[in-house]
């Protein structure tokens, strides 16, 4: 049977000063109409380059497709020139692409109506009027309310989720046969992500379009894809149907990916198993298994053999793996890179007193004034945080979850006194630090620290690694001599798993994971007791995520640290936290220990968040009932008068819309702010 697109033995190279980087090394795959196929792998695995090679969107030079065939509807796309008429007809016409960042995909100075009609007029040879009709039709298709009037709006007037819908509408504008979604939902919140993915799935089914889903998120794959290609270092290492891959993974890398991510249904004792080491340098690659250096199953024999090709897994139809050995989940591991166990003991919060509190936040309010007009009159307040109270006990991990814009980062920054509080009190170690000025605040700063989201942005690019870690010690003058500080830097490097020989390096010479380790080393250098982790692992690849989570847990045990752990990834928060608070639009809507929150969520918002999270298990996903909450988080400028969630809540009554619910305590300290409970 002829496939819609069939790629055979594709090779893409990039010429670099140090040699030739083979980013795609003999990749073959196919797609049939109506299929959703996922390409999974970490950054640098070549999954995006493979897709862009297919439509010749590789910058050339330095990139070059050196070998292979790309048969799209029977024609070899590589026989067309990069900018040829034929290829342009295919690209944008028959193949639509949805990129990761909706804000940079859309032109900010053009109305979305013009952007939509542009390609329609070009590819479908429509006149202006027809094109406008088509644009309205497309916006309806991606479920944008009131499409006629929205055509005149500019991209910045839409929310992130809406923008991504528009990008999808653009990709669909010429009825493509193939849709490539490159990390299309990675930048979005969980509920929006679920909405968008469901939408894309519906569209694909309706129009019999094939879709390639490029992602690093295994859970999404489990829910939406029919087949999976796992990529590593520019090669496909495993291929099969989603059920088979998840039930019976055959490549050590696939297994590694699965072991590295926490799931919503895991036992709390499960330790995440990161993939050890780094991707081998692909410049001037050798003919051998590239995963060998990180593989826990590798034997001496693997080193002597050439690159393994994809081999059919016996007894399973359409399941291929590229491994010299026959590995299953039960195969004995050759070498352990790490300990496998983790212990978890729940503490009894009823016995704790005020003296055990490290942080006590009482009715915290943070408002940002909005000025307008010539004389800059204050017209309103953005209530970023509106009456949040919680306490954090020594040695625990307090999780704070919520979608973007819910105020969780503002809480963190205010607790660290990087923002001023408009109202309420922040009590740190028994002292009220709410109104302290910079000078009075400094002695407290020694005891509190922060780990940031972006390991690239949180390190001064001009500072040496050793200086970065030493700086807080010098600033706070913790009473160590230069020699002692030097020694301590070395110790800290070892503690976070960095080679002290790297002290003279600058941040850009480290990988993402190493940088985050450096950030952690800096954060613990003055022996603080309290650390805020603001999305500390969200920018990292899954295997590195696992390494950093394990490191944070290890340090907590060794040094008795307390974490305020902020994240939007509910599975990770569940894995790491003792107690969890859920925030929505500046308020806390639910608060409980991790077990009761995840097994018995009370607030409709918590429920919908949990339902939106896909689980990395296709069988479970098929049977799971879920109701994706519709709509989006309202702007804090237009907060609903009653319960903030009432505009999206399926159970909302008249009371909810007019009266604000208060946080009430139920059994076992489980607090919830809802009229219906």
């Amino acid at each position, binding site marked *: 049977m002829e496939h819609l697109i069939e790629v055979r033995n594709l090779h893409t190279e990039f010429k670099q000063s140090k040699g030739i980087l083979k980013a795609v090394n003999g990749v073959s795959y196919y797609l049939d109409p109506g299929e959703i196929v996922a390409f999974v792998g970490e950054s640098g695995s070549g999954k995006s380059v493979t897709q862009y090679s297919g439509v010749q969107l590789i910058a050339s030079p330095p990139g070059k497709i050196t070998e292979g065939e790309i048969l799209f509807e029977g024609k070899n796309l590589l026989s067309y020139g990069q900018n040829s008429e034929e290829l342009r007809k295919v690209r944008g016409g028959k193949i639509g692409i949805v990129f990761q960042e909706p804000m940079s995909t859309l032109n900010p100075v053009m109305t979305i109506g013009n952007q939509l009609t542009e390609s329609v007029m070009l590819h479908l040879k429509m006149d202006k009027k027809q094109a406008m009709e088509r644009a309205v039709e497309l916006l309806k298709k991606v479920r944008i309310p009131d499409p006629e009037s929205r055509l005149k709006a500019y991209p910045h007037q839409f929310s992130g989720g809406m923008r991504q819908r528009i990008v999808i509408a653009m990709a669909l504008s010429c009825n493509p046969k193939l849709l490539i979604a490159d990390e299309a939902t990675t930048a979005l919140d969980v509920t929006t992500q679920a909405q968008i993915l469901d939408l894309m799935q519906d569209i694909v089914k309706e129009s019999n379009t094939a879709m390639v889903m490029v992602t690093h998120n295994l859970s999404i794959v489990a829910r939406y894809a029919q087949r999976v290609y796992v990529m590593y270092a520019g090669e496909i290492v495993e291929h099969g149907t989603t059920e088979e891959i998840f039930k019976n993974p055959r490549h050590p890398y696939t297994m590694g990916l699965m072991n590295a991510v926490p799931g919503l249904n895991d036992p709390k004792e499960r330790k995440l198993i990161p993939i050890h080491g780094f991707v081998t340098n692909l410049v001037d690659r050798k003919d051998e298994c590239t995963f060998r250096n990180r593989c826990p199953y590798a034997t001496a024999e693997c080193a002597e053999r050439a690159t393994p090709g994809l081999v059919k897994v016996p007894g399973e139809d359409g399941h291929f793996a590229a491994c010299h050995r026959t590995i299953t989940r039960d195969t004995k591991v050759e070498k352990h890179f790490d300990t496998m166990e983790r212990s978890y003991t729940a503490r009894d919060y009823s016995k704790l007193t005020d003296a055990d509190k490290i942080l006590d936040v009482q009715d915290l309010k943070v408002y940002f004034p909005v000025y307008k007009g010539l004389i800059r009159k204050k017209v309103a307040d953005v209530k970023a945080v509106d009456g949040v109270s919680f306490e954090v006990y020594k040695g625990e991990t307090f999780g704070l979850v919520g979608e973007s814009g819910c105020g969780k980062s503002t809480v963190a920054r205010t607790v*660290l006194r*990087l923002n001023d509080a408009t109202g309420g009190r922040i009590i740190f170690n028994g002292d009220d630090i709410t109104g302290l000025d*910079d000078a009075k605040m*400094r002695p407290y*700063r*020694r005891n*509190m*620290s*922060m780990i*940031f*989201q*972006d390991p690239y*942005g*949180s*390190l*001064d*690019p*001009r*500072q040496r690694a050793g200086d970065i870690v030493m*700086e*807080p010690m010098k*600033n*706070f003058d913790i009473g160590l001599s230069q020699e002692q500080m030097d020694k301590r830097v070395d110790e800290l490097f070892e503690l976070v798993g960095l080679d002290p020989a790297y002290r*003279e390096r*600058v*941040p*850009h*010479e480290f990988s993402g994971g190493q940088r985050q380790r450096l*950030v952690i080393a*800096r954060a613990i250098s*003055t022996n603080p007791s309290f650390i805020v982790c603001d999305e500390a692992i969200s920018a990292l690849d899954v295997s590195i995520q696992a390494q950093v989570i394990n490191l944070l847990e290890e340090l907590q045990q060794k040094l008795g640290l307390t974490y305020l752990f902020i994240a939007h990834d509910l599975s990770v928060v569940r894995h790491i936290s003792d107690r969890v608070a859920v925030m929505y639009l500046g308020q806390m809507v639910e608060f409980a220990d991790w077990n009761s929150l995840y097994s018995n969520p009370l607030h409709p918002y918590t429920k919908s968040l949990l339902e939106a999270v896909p689980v990395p298990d296709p069988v479970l996903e098929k049977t799971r009932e879920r109701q994706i909450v519709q709509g989006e988080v309202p702007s804090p400028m237009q907060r609903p008068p009653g319960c903030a969630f009432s505009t999206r809540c399926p159970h909302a009554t008249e009371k909810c819309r007019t009266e604000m619910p208060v946080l009430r305590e139920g059994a076992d300290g489980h607090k919830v702010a809802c009229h219906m409970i």
Partner: protein
Amino acid sequence: MKKENKILTPAAERRKQFLDAFFATVPVRVGFSIIAVMVFCAVLAPVVAPYGPNDQDLSNMLQKMSFAHPFGTDPLGRDLLSRIIYGARASLSVGLVSTIIAGSIGITLGLLAGNMGKWVDAVIMRIMDAMMSIPVVILALFLGSILGKGLGNIMLCIGIVMMPGYARMTRGQVLTVKQLDYVTAGKIGGATQIKNALKHILPNCIAPNLVLATMNLGTAILTEAGLSYLGMGINPPTASWGAMVSDGYRYLSDYPHVAIIPGIFVILTVWAFNVCGDALRDATDPRLRGTR
């Protein structure tokens, strides 16, 4: 390549890394050599120059290039090569010193404005705006009439005129860099506002200023010529490249070399400083180091 057996101290290692990165490309080596030769000749002008800069020889005026006069002579029969060598003293020092004055004051003001905000920002930036609204030559003439003639004053005057550009550029950079996580991290790590500004913000605001400075260098040399032409600058017969260009243009149709040769030196200097400025920016930025 010879194998390095020496173990370098960290500081020496950094110096070596920096020099390797700086001299990585051929244009930089050429540009740097040009600057070095020019500075060498300017300093040792009396030894290097074949004639005195003001030695007139009216029987040999407007000569073409020859062995006796490699670049020919000007309308008063002065040797152009000698005048260019002596002129380098005035031109290079005007270019460098006025750029340094403009850069140091401008960057300081921009750093203050960006970091302090509020009324400090408003006052500094409104003054800069006011200065920018006046045409360069007119402002320079005005300042020159207050300060008086002379090489030192002309440097100061050009420096002040070019200062607002640096202040604006730096302030904009500060506002961006201030928001970055590593500045927040500095604050959490106990750095005072001043320390944060000097250690984390300032170094990360320098790069665009370096580019601006290399561009301004040429402008400064030519502005000096303009001012000299208007009678504000260096008194004739003291040689400066700018003055030589503006004196020579009258003979452009018949004796083009009189204006073109000093012009070529201005272009060469500007190019050399441009290349070196770019290389300096790349070599001081760890992210760009070794990308070329």
